[in-house]
């Protein structure tokens, strides 16, 4: 380790340290308390590129999308007070989905802290429930060390967002500390205890009807190749969670797609029939489990998670291993005895034929048609981002993800407005790959102002707006569980989305009927000189099936619209 001889202030030391840590982009929105840091981006002539956004929430989602798409931490920079306040949704989104993200927030000068000075907000306490950790820097000399530490915390073990709050006088003060020339080594991967591993391996070997549940932990630990060979060698089918999409090629014959509330019917039936559920890197989210007492009731539960606090939180495990997914899979691959399991695979084949995902094809354009066409035109290889709601579930069902880090969606927090800014971050991180943002009209309008950011940087993202003029998922719940009483879900006054995008100088397409869908999408996907918006006016009152009402068991799965009244769910929102 050696030191830089530059005379730097705190802000410049921050930028230099970010360089050492390999940061490519800072997604930021300026303001009074961060002027020294924005100034340092200029005065240091840093190679780090500043992406100036239109709102702090957009900056956070861009940093989040960058992190999910690349596996490297995203960095956002905001000012104090409302800047930090506007960042909270982005922190929450990253925290719920274990995304490594660094938020640098400006702050009032140290002598004014706690005195209710202009734009002074206690961001440390404001963000505490939605970050992995936070630091307030009170000496310019500690800038390099604190930033290194923050990156280590954000990326080690179970990743998460970290806040670094820097008062303005600290940014401006001379920094006497050296800048580390090399990034600190990451924490070694967490390994399992051998006796636990052997017991789990015996349970898997013994099983006649096993199934793997692959979560985001597989992606975070870069274990997709190991998972693929483990599943194929042992003839074990693979179900993925919403965030685990891409952990296993969904076009492979062993893939069962997503499970849970809006998962495939065959995946949900398999969960109820399996004699050994092998959960690798998923936290048994309530959208998966429903009624905990009746979930996978015939199965021996094997749970591998890097976070010990997730073991036995939702579902009691018969065999638990606290470990990095890659380390555990590597060891299991060595000691599990392969079996053919022909009868089980035949049963799964029959379930797939009996209960395929389907949608009505008639003269009205549907969201499923658009998504299925996108999948076919890209062979499932594009990076896809979504917002939250019906379109998200249909995208999860009909866009079969083939590769790791190609599915970026707000799972735990369910943040509308995530998709388009996340696509901007993903495209910057993966400039050679096609990035498609799929949004509903509700979510898109929450962060539509970032069209300007996409346009300014001429990013070739494909922005698909599935406009049913409704908050569709809430309307679906009102239809099924609230006697079809609509309240607050009609999005009256939606704009002409093509005119809106054209106002930003963005190329647009408009689809209103099924026949022109594929040809129009093909043309839009081929456009690479900048962003393109495809406004799809789709059927208003379509519903997502299969559906398991919240908190109920898989026995209550609805394959189509119910013919009798359904009791309001009480288990969860």
């Amino acid at each position, binding site marked *: 380790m050696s030191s830089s001889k530059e005379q730097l202030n705190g802000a410049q030391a921050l930028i230099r340290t970010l360089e050492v840590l390999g940061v490519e982009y800072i997604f930021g929105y300026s303001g009074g308390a961060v002027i020294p840091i924005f100034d340092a981006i200029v005065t240091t002539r840093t190679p780090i590129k500043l992406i100036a956004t239109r709102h702090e929430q957009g900056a956070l989602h861009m940093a989040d999308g960058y992190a999910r798409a690349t596996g490297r931490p995203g960095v956002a920079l905001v000012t104090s007070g409302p800047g930090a306040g506007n960042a909270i949704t982005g922190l929450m989104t990253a925290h719920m989905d274990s995304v490594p993200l660094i938020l640098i927030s400006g702050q009032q000068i140290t002598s004014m802290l706690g005195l209710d000075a202009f734009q002074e907000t206690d961001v440390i306490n404001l963000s*505490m429930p939605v970050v*992995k950790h936070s630091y*307030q820097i009170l000496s310019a000399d500690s800038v390099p060390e604190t930033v290194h530490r923050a990156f280590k*915390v954000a990326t080690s*073990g179970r990743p998460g967002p970290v806040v670094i709050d820097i008062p303005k006088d600290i940014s401006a003060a001379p920094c006497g500390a050296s800048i580390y020339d090399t990034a600190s080594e990451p924490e070694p991967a967490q390994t399992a205890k051998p006796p636990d591993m052997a017991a789990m391996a015996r349970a898997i070997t013994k099983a006649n009807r096993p199934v793997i549940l692959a979560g985001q932990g597989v992606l975070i630990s870069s274990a997709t190749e190991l998972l693929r060979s483990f599943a194929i060698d042992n003839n074990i089918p693979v179900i993925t969670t919403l965030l685990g999409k891409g952990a296993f090629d969904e076009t492979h014959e062993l893939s069962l797609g997503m499970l849970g509330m809006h998962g495939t019917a065959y995946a949900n039936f398999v969960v109820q029939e399996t004699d050994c559920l092998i959960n690798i890197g998923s936290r048994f989210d309530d959208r998966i489990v429903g009624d905990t007492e009746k979930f996978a009731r015939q199965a021996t539960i094997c749970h591998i998670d890097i*976070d*010990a*606090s997730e073991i036995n*939180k939702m579902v009691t495990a018969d065999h638990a291993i606290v470990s990095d997914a890659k380390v555990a899979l590597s060891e299991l691959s060595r000691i599990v005895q392969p079996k053919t399991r022909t009868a089980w695979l035949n049963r799964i084949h029959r379930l797939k034929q009996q209960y395929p995902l389907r949608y009505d094809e008639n003269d009205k354009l549907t969201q499923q048609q658009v998504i299925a066409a996108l999948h076919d035109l890209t062979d499932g290889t594009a990076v896809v981002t979504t917002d939250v709601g019906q379109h998200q579930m249909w995208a999860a069902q009909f866009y079969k993800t083939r590769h790791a880090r190609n599915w970026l969606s707000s799972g735990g927090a369910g943040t509308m407005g995530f998709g388009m800014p996340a696509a901007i971050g993903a495209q910057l991180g993966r400039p050679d790959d096609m990035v498609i943002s799929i949004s509903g009209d509700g979510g898109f309008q929450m962060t539509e102002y970032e069209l300007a950011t996409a346009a300014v940087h001429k990013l070739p993202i494909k922005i698909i707006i599935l406009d049913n003029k409704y908050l569709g998922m809430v309307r679906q719940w009102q239809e099924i569980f609230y006697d079809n009483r609509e309240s607050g879900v009609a999005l009256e006054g939606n704009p002409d989305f093509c005119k809106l995008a054209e106002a930003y100088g963005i190329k647009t397409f408009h689809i209103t009927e099924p026949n022109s869908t594929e040809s129009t999408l093909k043309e839009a996907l081929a456009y690479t000189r900048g962003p393109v918006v495809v406004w799809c006016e789709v059927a208003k009152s379509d519903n997502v099936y299969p559906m398991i009402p919240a908190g109920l068991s898989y026995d209550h799965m609805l394959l189509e619209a119910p013919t009798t009244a359904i009791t309001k769910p009480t288990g969860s929102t």
Partner: protein
Amino acid sequence: MAEYKNKARLVLRVRQSVTVLPRCLQNLSRRGYIVLELSTKTVDATTAKLTMTIEGEQRWHSALPHLLSRLVDVEDVTVEEL
């Protein structure tokens, strides 16, 4: 409102920092715990011992060491049923 009757003694060895106590309390609060007693003792220049009597759902007692030891600055956690 749920009635909590299950008490436990929670002992944490922590690195001294401004935010370690509120982080611990926030995590306990999220699982529905209330703190009945709290004492702190300096161990050395960098370390402190926090002792709490808490009340909450018994099913979470055994999870608390894992839940709290995830926090930066928390070094060791023990729970004793009362």
